[in-house]
């Protein structure tokens, strides 16, 4: 389904700020895999997602999605089949446009925009149904500008925007981190529900080790731009939060001491 081979990327090459983002990173996902990604700050998790969706260009390596080599495809091209959510709820929606206009934009994903009306009467019914699934009362507020919604509502809406046309791959970068605990749980459950319903192949970055084990079927651990651990199957089932925390902090300590030496 998703095949990443030897991704390497270095930031600010040849300057004092030179920094390795990813180093010979390889990963292979099966159809419907829901992978949680953990690792300390600066481990390269966001960099991984940014290279997959094409925001960053890799120095070397290859990426194949669903049999198609997309290594040299532009970001907006890849977005036809890659949905994503960021940590910042403000990034995924257009604040001065209405809920229905935001959804209409996403609903046209993959087809070139034309001169037909953006929001069609027939779409409204679909939008209402989908919004009702979020259970936030947004289905009655189609004409409300998105900027008036709370962070949690906006993130839930972004989730809908990213999945209203089922993507081949969904990338979530700490998408509940900026929300209060209760809203975060709610958005996380919604995410899980939608991913399961359409069995969307997903990569989800989280700093919540509990979530990393509770959701999805695989967990990977990154450190200094490298893949250091893949947890799946029985091994993952028997893994406890405490043990994973230990593993996590050893790698985190490694990278910390390495940085000190540098």
């Amino acid at each position: 389904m998703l095949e990443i081979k030897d991704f390497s990327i270095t930031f600010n090459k040849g300057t004092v700020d030179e920094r390795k983002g990813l180093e010979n990173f390889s990963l292979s996902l099966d159809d419907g895999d829901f992978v949680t990604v953990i690792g300390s700050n600066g481990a390269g998790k966001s960099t991984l997602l940014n290279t997959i969706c094409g925001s960053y260009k890799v120095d070397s390596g290859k990426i194949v999605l669903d049999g198609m080599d997309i290594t040299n495809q532009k970001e907006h091209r890849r977005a036809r089949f890659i949905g994503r959510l960021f940590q910042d709820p403000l990034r995924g929606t257009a604040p001065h446009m209405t809920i229905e206009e935001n959804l209409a934009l996403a609903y046209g994903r993959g087809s070139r925009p034309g001169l037909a009306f953006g929001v069609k009467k027939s779409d409204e019914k679909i939008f209402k149904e989908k919004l009702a699934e979020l259970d936030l009362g947004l289905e009655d507020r189609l004409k409300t500008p998105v900027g008036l919604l709370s962070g949690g509502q906006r993130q839930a809406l972004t989730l809908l925007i990213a999945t209203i046309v089922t993507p081949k791959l969904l990338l979530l970068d700490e998408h509940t981190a900026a929300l209060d605990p209760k809203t975060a749980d709610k958005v996380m459950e919604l995410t899980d529900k939608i991913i399961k319903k359409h069995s969307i192949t997903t990569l989800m970055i989280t700093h919540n080790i509990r979530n990393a084990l509770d959701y999805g079927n695989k967990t990977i651990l990154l450190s200094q731009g490298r893949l250091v651990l893949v947890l799946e199957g029985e091994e993952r089932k028997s893994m406890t939060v405490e043990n994973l925390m230990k593993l996590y902090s050893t790698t985190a300590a490694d990278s910390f001491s390495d940085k000190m030496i540098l």
Partner: protein
Amino acid sequence: MFSINALELGLIFSIMTMGVFVSLRILNIPDLSVDGSIVLGLAVSSYFTIHGMPILGIFLSFFAGTLAGAVTGLLITKMKIQPILAGILTMTALYTVNFRIMGRPNLDLPVETKRLGNDYYTIFTPFEELLGKDWHVVIVVSLIVLIIAVLLYLFMKTQIGISLRATGDNEHMVRATSINADGMKVLGLALANGLVSLSGGIWAHQQQTADISNGLGMLVASLAAIIIGEVIFKKTNVISGILAAISGIIIYRYIYSIALTFGLRGEDLKLITAVIVVGIIGIKMIRFKDIFAKLGSGNGGGKNA
């Protein structure tokens, strides 16, 4: 104090202001090439009118403007030049282009343009008898403005229009939904400058002359107009924006003409306009600071449109 000329100019320039609304408010790109684009329209329109093709000249003034806007857009997106510098570059280049089209700094449409049946006629002459000498320009231009405003409004509701607005509102989101944000910027700037240039094209027929210096201060006038209009139409949706652009420039032209009757000269008004723009922006900034202080961190977007 009523001046038909002020109303005529206000209406004609409202097409320009709608164009500036598209670049500044919809795309969120400050495009400084306006002063050049409007003269481009004047030049193209007067050139074709003198050669007996006034209607074609009006259409071509629009298309010439879209080309100029596309150039600015490509400078910004492909060459990664700062929007402000890109606009200045285009404006500078347009000065030469405009001069070449006109052949000299000032091009009068021949006197015969006033007479119907002659090869030379402006788009207004056929209506002079029908609608009366005083009002025919106002009526014809009002109709044109109405049609453009409605088309612009409808366009902003289409798939492309929504994509365009989203590009100015949140580029991240647009890229993530598979839309070519760079393409949208080029398209939007083309449309914006097309309108500005069309405004110049019609203006040439109204004043029956084109002057290389006609563009001076037009951008700042549009900014002033948009800011004035937004005091009346406060909402940030498309309809309010269009109505703000139109009403703002008409009010601005009235203030302008009143100031002239008080003995101020056109040259004085450029400074006054600049001061008004700075003043209103200053007042707005103070207000926004207060609002943000009260809200802590706002949950809206960062745009103070």
